[in-house]
């Protein structure tokens, strides 16, 4: 038994949901993904609750410190160890079965460990007082320490945690994907549904891993320099260039923006792979693979530089030309979305759909992603961003993009769950989950966008002015429905029943 299976088997409550089916001989592609998926849901359980704490602190006028602590933990935990890790687990399992290669060795172990240990260390730092939000707002950590708002120790601990999380996303996970897809021998007994690397279902995985690696490397250099200085291994004077706010911020967003796009590429590719399996006429074909691939390429090419839209209001420190560029490229990603809309709907129109919960969750998540995309290109327009930057619109967009991708992965997981665990899910609970998550997520998204339109600031512990508390109450209500939908989803996993037929056969059917 692998270490991964051992950890899953010994985890209370969540372990039961992800115990890998050993009878299939597929443990080598299932064990590490199962552990990653399980860990991601542990983080969701904790950080989802923190989401509800935020509006609660505001409605009951509790200390603003609590708000900023929960804000930081909520954003960081749901972006990295929940959403990214869920994607990593489901994506690895899926592509392992497509190319017939084992997910074993030190790279999956390192990916899992650096993500979870890093996130845990970051959590400790936040509890020590470091409240810098998920995007760090550099040089806030250092300035806060100088002002005595939090300790220098908490900054060092926090950077260590962030560094480990980044190493997972920028190095270990992309290297693992490349190793798996381009090296090693294919083993016939691990092939579940064979795919070539040119199919949209695989192309997205490769493009995404390349994006993470390439756009992340500058941040690795800057981060390593800073960390060495914080640990006093090199003198601060040698790290001064990296601690320059403009340098740090641009390197950070070059990666952070592309992290979101890479996750989008990956989930779009999973959707293109899953949808054909649910076509009513059994044709298993997209309307056009070429068009699907074109959408992925457009998303890739436009996204690399569209991150400039984060700094439009920094004019003239960000030159106007770069802001126009960011504006145009962002709307270019919209063209990619328009193409994907056409591909998906034309595919369904051509072949009919078997509306099972897995694929419906993927499609609803995708619709949420389109809503998010619309809000994202709107706020990338120079004029609109001057009125929306820093408002709840931005939080709404950020949370919705993460939520949409997570819902799509939860749908893909629903599809793969029987192969992973040898157990079946209850479709009635699946449909209930979809209904609740649809109401909760679209509701929360629209309310947060509306709050932003009304001028409600993001990351701001005083909603009780200008009538903004209305949005606060609505966020709490939709958040409760959203939280309940996750409970239903996890309850379904917990209640899943053994499938009697040998899973190895079913998996290959």
């Amino acid at each position, binding site marked *: 038994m692998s270490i991964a299976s051992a950890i899953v088997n010994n985890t209370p409550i969540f372990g039961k949901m992800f115990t890998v089916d050993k009878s299939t001989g597929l443990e080598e592609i299932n064990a590490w993904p199962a552990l990653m998926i399980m860990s991601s849901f542990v983080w969701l359980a904790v950080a989802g609750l923190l989401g509800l704490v935020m509006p609660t602190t505001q409605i009951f006028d509790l200390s*603003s410190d609590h708000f*900023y602590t929960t804000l930081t933990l909520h954003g960081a935990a749901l972006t990295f160890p929940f959403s990214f890790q869920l994607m990593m687990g489901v994506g690895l399992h899926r592509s392992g079965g497509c190319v017939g290669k084992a997910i074993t060795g030190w790279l999956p172990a390192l990916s899992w460990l650096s993500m979870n240990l890093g996130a845990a260390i970051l959590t400790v730092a936040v509890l020590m007082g470091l*409240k810098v939000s998920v995007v760090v*707002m550099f*040089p*806030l950590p250092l300035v*806060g320490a100088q002002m005595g708002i939090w300790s220098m120790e908490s900054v060092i601990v926090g950077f260590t945690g962030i560094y480990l999380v980044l190493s997972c996303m920028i190095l270990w996970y992309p290297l693992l994907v490349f190793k798996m897809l381009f090296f090693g021998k294919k083993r016939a007994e691990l092939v579940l549904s064979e795919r070539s690397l040119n199919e949209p279902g695989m192309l997205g995985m490769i493009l995404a891993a390349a994006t993470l690696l390439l756009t992340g490397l500058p941040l690795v250099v800057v981060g390593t320099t800073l960390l060495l200085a914080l640990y006093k291994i090199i003198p601060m004077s040698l790290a001064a260039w990296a601690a320059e*706010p*403009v340098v740090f*911020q641009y390197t950070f967003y070059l990666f952070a923006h592309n992290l979101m796009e890479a996750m989008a590429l990956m989930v779009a590719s999973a959707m293109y792979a899953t949808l054909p399996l649910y076509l*009513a*006429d059994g*044709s298993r074909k997209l*309307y*056009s693979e070429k068009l699907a691939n074109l959408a992925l390429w457009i998303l890739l090419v436009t996204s690399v530089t569209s991150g400039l839209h984060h*700094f439009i*209001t*920094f*004019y*003239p*420190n960000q030159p106007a030309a770069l802001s126009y560029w960011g*504006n*145009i490229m962002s*709307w270019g990603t*919209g*063209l990619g979305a328009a*193409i994907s*809309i056409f591909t998906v*709907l*034309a595919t*369904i*129109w051509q*072949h*009919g*759909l*078997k509306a099972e919960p897995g694929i*419906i969750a993927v499609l609803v998540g995708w619709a949420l992603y*389109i*809503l998010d995309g*619309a809000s994202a290109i*709107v706020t990338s327009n120079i*004029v*609109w961003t*001057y*009125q*929306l*930057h*820093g*408002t709840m619109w931005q939080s709404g967009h950020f949370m919705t993009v993460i939520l949409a991708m997570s819902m799509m992965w939860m749908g893909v997981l629903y599809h793969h769950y029987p192969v992973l665990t040898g157990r079946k899910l209850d479709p009635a609970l699946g449909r209930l989950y979809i209904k609740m998550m649809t109401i909760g997520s679209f509701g929360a998204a629209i309310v947060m*966008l*509306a709050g932003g*339109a*009304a*001028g409600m*600031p*993001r990351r*701001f*512990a*005083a909603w009780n002015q200008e*009538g903004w508390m209305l949005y606060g109450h609505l966020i709490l209500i939709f958040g409760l429905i959203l939280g309940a939908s996750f409970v239903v989803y996890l309850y379904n996993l917990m209640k899943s029943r053994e499938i009697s037929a040998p899973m190895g056969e079913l998996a290959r059917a």
Partner: protein
Amino acid sequence: MLDYVYTGWGAFSATMFMFVPFALMAYYVIRRKSLVDTGPTSLQPSEFAPLEGIWLTFAFIFFVVVNLASLKFIPWATASAAVTGEPEVHVDFTAKSWSYDISNRQIEAGKPVRFSGRSSDTQHGFAVYHPDGRVLFTMLMMPNTAKPTSVVYTFKEPGKYKVRCLEYCGIAHHAMQDELTVVKSN
């Protein structure tokens, strides 16, 4: 009309303008093809092609028009001295945790004002709110920049205009507020 489009609520409307038709179409297609008429369609792939062209052309034109029409509202281009021929009033400020140092808090309506700001510690924002609660514009300042962050804005109505920091800057970020007074021009 255009004045409304390029505000916060205009942004909301534009988002819904893109999303709602998509949502209705997606709902219709998915419902119909999974419940009502699940068989494959008799339409040939070639019959989709014109639809594909129309859809993508429409999206492209919409994207171009929305962005082109927004140009004249960019706060670098509008109301600048070069455009209106009027001299600019200067308001300079420094942001620090958690307050502003503002050169001049009283402004005449109708005169183009150039706001120029710097930060002396961490990232800060400078968002000016209309008395009715809308954001008029926001600015982002980082420490150590060669130039100040800058926009030009012309106030139309007299009143009290709140200033708030919209870049998270630590535990008293929400208290980082100020106020400008716009008076009738004489």
